């Protein structure tokens, strides 16, 4: 598109706008559809971004950290802990291994038993934090060796429940992205319908314009401009409302988990602002295609 044409598309040409009478219902349909679709797109985008964040965080935090629990009689606990630590440090793929201190263990249990817990007098297992390297360790091999050398050790590497969760979060992100594409496609289809209805309603006008020497591009432009601007306006309103909706969601907190994390963070707040121009682009393409097709059918 030449610069002149782009300017005309935005600034418009009052005279050219008058030659095609505005057709009421297609204008409202375009505004409503682009507004509603933009509103949905904001949520799909928020969902996609939030589940992406979640997937990354879970994959990162949970995958890297595992816990080794030493269940042993008090007199063997220290020896087994030492043996386990030695074994772990020799295991390829283990970045570090560290026994929790008594204070740390007390802190972990405090929410359940209170701060004044006499931890030494309880048969609390010793916990060892295992940080996985990259590439990671071979979980099955490690378990076999622990079984042989540290009989009281239980490796809890979360993989049994962590993998499906991360997969679910990733699937959710994909669904969000697919939803955005579907929304764009549905918008294009609806605007094509509305543009075709407007072109059909104005068949006589188009014929007269052709008779007095109007170029196809001139006629198409009158329609394209109108639909593009309507889609832009509708989408801007929809995005505004959608962003307010997302903004009103309770702030993310550790307890809230997934639902409260549904929102935008930092620069991602700018992403929804791309929706109105993209909606206008979709309308521009759909209307141009519809107009060219219909004008091509005329003599």
């Amino acid at each position, binding site marked *: 598109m030449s610069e002149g044409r782009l300017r005309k598309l935005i600034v418009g040409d009052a*005279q*050219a706008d*008058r*030659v095609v*009478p505005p057709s009421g219902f297609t204008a409202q349909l375009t505004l409503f559809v682009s507004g509603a679709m933009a509103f949905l797109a904001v949520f799909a985008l928020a969902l996609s971004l939030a589940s992406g964040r979640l997937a990354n965080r879970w994959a990162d935090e949970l995958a890297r950290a595992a816990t080794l629990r030493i269940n042993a009689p008090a007199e063997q606990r220290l020896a087994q802990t030492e043996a386990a630590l030695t074994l772990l440090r020799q295991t390829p793929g283990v970045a570090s291994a560290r026994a929790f201190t008594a204070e740390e263990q007390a802190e972990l249990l405090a929410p359940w038993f209170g701060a004044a817990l006499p931890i030494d007098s309880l048969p609390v297992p010793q916990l060892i934090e295992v940080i996985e390297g990259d590439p990671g360790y071979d979980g099955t091999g490690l378990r076999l060796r622990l079984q042989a050398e540290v009989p009281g050790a239980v490796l809890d590497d979360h993989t049994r429940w962590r993998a499906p969760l991360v997969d679910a979060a990733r699937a959710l992100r994909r669904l969000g992205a697919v939803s955005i594409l579907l929304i764009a496609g549905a918008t294009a289809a609806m605007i094509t319908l509305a543009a075709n209805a407007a072109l059909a309603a104005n068949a006589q*006008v188009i*014929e*007269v*314009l*052709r*008779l*007095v*020497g*109007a*170029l*196809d*591009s*001139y006629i198409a432009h009158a329609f394209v401009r109108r639909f593009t601007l309507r889609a832009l306006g509708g989408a801007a309103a929809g995005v505004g409302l959608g962003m307010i909706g997302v903004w009103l969601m309770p702030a993310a907190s550790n307890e809230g988990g997934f639902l409260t994390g549904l929102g935008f963070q930092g620069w991602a707040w700018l992403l929804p602002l791309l929706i109105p121009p993209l909606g206008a682009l979709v309308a521009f393409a759909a209307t141009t295609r519809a107009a060219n097709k219909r*004008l*091509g059918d005329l*003599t």
Partner: protein
Amino acid sequence: MAALNHGPLKLTGCWGKTAERKQGTVVIELENVGYNYGGGELLSDVSVKLAPGSFHFLTGPSGAGKTTLLKLCYGALTPTSGRVRAFNMDVQGLDRDQMAHLRRRVGVVHQDCRFLDHLPVIENIALPLIVAGKDLAQEEANLRELLNWVGLSQRADALPPELSGGERQRAALARSVILSPDVIIADEPTGNVDWEMSQRLLQLLVELNRMGKTILVATHDMALIRAAKKQVQARVLRISAKQLIQAGADL
């Protein structure tokens, strides 16, 4: 006739200009043209040349194919056989944009006028300027003069459905000349008007011809042709049995 008293025409408006005539060129030429809407041949082996500045009447009974022949001349229909040339271009070979440009060079008064009913008369007359992207502010004086010439100054802001038959025809004529075409093709311009108005429209066409414009008028009104022959050298073509024949002696 009060309607005709709008003073002698001054050729100041640029719509009155005509491209310099090149000797020997033909404005519109039909060569062995045949046409068929699908149910048998309507026109067959029609040949005619419109020289620059000539005045032609096209006559024949209703349904003979007058409108069809005019449409072939300005490219709204493509002949089923033969060729149509306009301004030395093969009309069949033109693409859609070239066809639009051809329509700016041929002023057409359609049988049913064809206005945009949502726009006032003045904008309908200016429509060819608007779609050609001309700046209307610069053309305003021209437009006013043209409105005055066809006697519609008082009706500039009326909507087309509010016009009488004669006013519609004059508005359509004004629209056809606004881009100062070299040729004006009028399809039954006096079809729906009384005798006085038909004389007035004829007067306008004769004035345009005197400005040098090539005129082709389809009509079945013999009295109109007789009246015209007193004022200009007009040739009469008649469609008869799918053919185009020169008439004249019998008028």
